[in-house]
């Protein structure tokens, strides 16, 4: 790919959010990550996005975010927004493929915000592909 493709995807995410919200939004960075625990995925650091925006346009955003995952060949099993704790400021959108160690942490939690810095947009429980919470 990969540099040209991720540059295009960064731009597409930014453009999509702008069209949705009718104002400037900035995707400051798109990162591919792999953690020592076994989790992997991508992170999009974003500026100009608030939790309210996600709550209002969650359905439309999620649909597009799943398309992004598909373009990067990442299973869209867990998509969440990372917030600055205690505020409505969205710092990043994460597409994370959970490892066996980290999966239970989220699978046993309840609600959209299991932590003050995480807003879950989509979580697939293993064996229940496609089920959203």
């Amino acid at each position, binding site marked *: 790919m990969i540099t040209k493709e991720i540059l295009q995807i960064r731009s597409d995410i930014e453009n999509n959010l702008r069209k949705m919200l009718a104002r400037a939004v900035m995707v400051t960075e798109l990162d591919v990550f792999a953690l020592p625990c076994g989790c992997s995925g991508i992170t999009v650091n974003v*500026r100009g996005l608030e939790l309210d925006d996600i709550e209002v346009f969650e359905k439309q955003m999620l649909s597009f975010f799943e398309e992004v995952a598909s373009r990067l060949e990442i299973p869209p099993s867990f998509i969440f927004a990372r917030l600055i704790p205690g505020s409505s400021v969205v710092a990043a959108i994460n597409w994370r493929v959970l490892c066996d160690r980290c999966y239970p942490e989220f699978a046993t939690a309840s609600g959209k915000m299991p932590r003050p810095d995480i807003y879950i947009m989509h979580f697939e429980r293993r064996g229940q592909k496609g089920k959203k919470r």
Partner: protein
Amino acid sequence: MTMKKRLYVPHPGHFDGLKELVSEAGKDIYSIFMAGSPDYVGTGRSNLSSPQIEDIREQTEYAHKNGVKVEIVLNSSCLGGRQLTPEGFNLIHWYLGQLDSCGIDTIVVADPYLVEIIARDFEMLPVVSVLSFVDSPEKARFYEDLGAHSIVVDPDVHRHFDVLHAIRDAVDCEIKLLVNEGCLYQCPFRYAHFNFFSHAFGPQPRPNVLDDYYYDRCIMLRIKDPKLITISPWIRPEDLKEYADITNVFKIGGRTHYVNWILNCVSAYTDESYEGNLMDLLDCPKALKDLYYISNRDFDGALDHWKNCPTICANCGFCRELTDRAVKVYAGGGTENEETVLWSEMAGITEVSA
């Protein structure tokens, strides 16, 4: 014809950076400024480096050999009270003595207590930081009476020429203007943010913080409405001459930037002219230089309005109109289809219904 002026220029702190600044722009630089070690007193910015005493001594000798003065910035807005304890006082006083022995010329502090100590006990001259928020003749006189050699005026009054003239008339000490800070006008985060910086980039223990709420919220506000960039009290290179009857001492902010960024600013403010994106020159919202293109030329003559502006925006609309006309947003950045679109054409038009 440009005015005769003294430029204080940011230095990231490493010797190679100083050598590059001096070799590329030494003749235009009156003084460099850089942070000291955060182990003793923090600063109002994040640090790219933390030069130790011997490094500062070597760099000072090198700068002086090349006709450039050296200023150290210890402008923590919160010392946590440590400075008032015997142990804290002794440690800070020892560190100030070490800096003084390096032969530095000036030292920037925000705490009045440190202004008084430095003026009384050391050869290096105390400079009152922009983080002392000197925005009135009364406050300026207070700091001068404490022993201030120079005062960096609160940028919030940069476009209030009556206040600037009153400050000039109230004191005999040097008045310095920080031309490109680019922070929000009347910023509601200012005290909390700089107090946070003071601890995050000051002596141990330092808070382990993942995200800077104040910065991210500030950036968000300016993404939602770039008029906040227009009304931010920066001074364009072309407008320096308008301040000639107040001071000829100007400070360029940006010690957390790369040297080539600093050199570009030095060139612009030396020449008092810049053709390009105004965002290239602003220190604080550097994250937005890849979002906005604002032609510096579109602001020609704006200061004539601001000089007489009562800053009651609801009754005016000048900055709104200027923003709508001048601010362009990069779209498709990093791809073959990169372009700019007017911010005013983007705002308010959604293609999606909730």
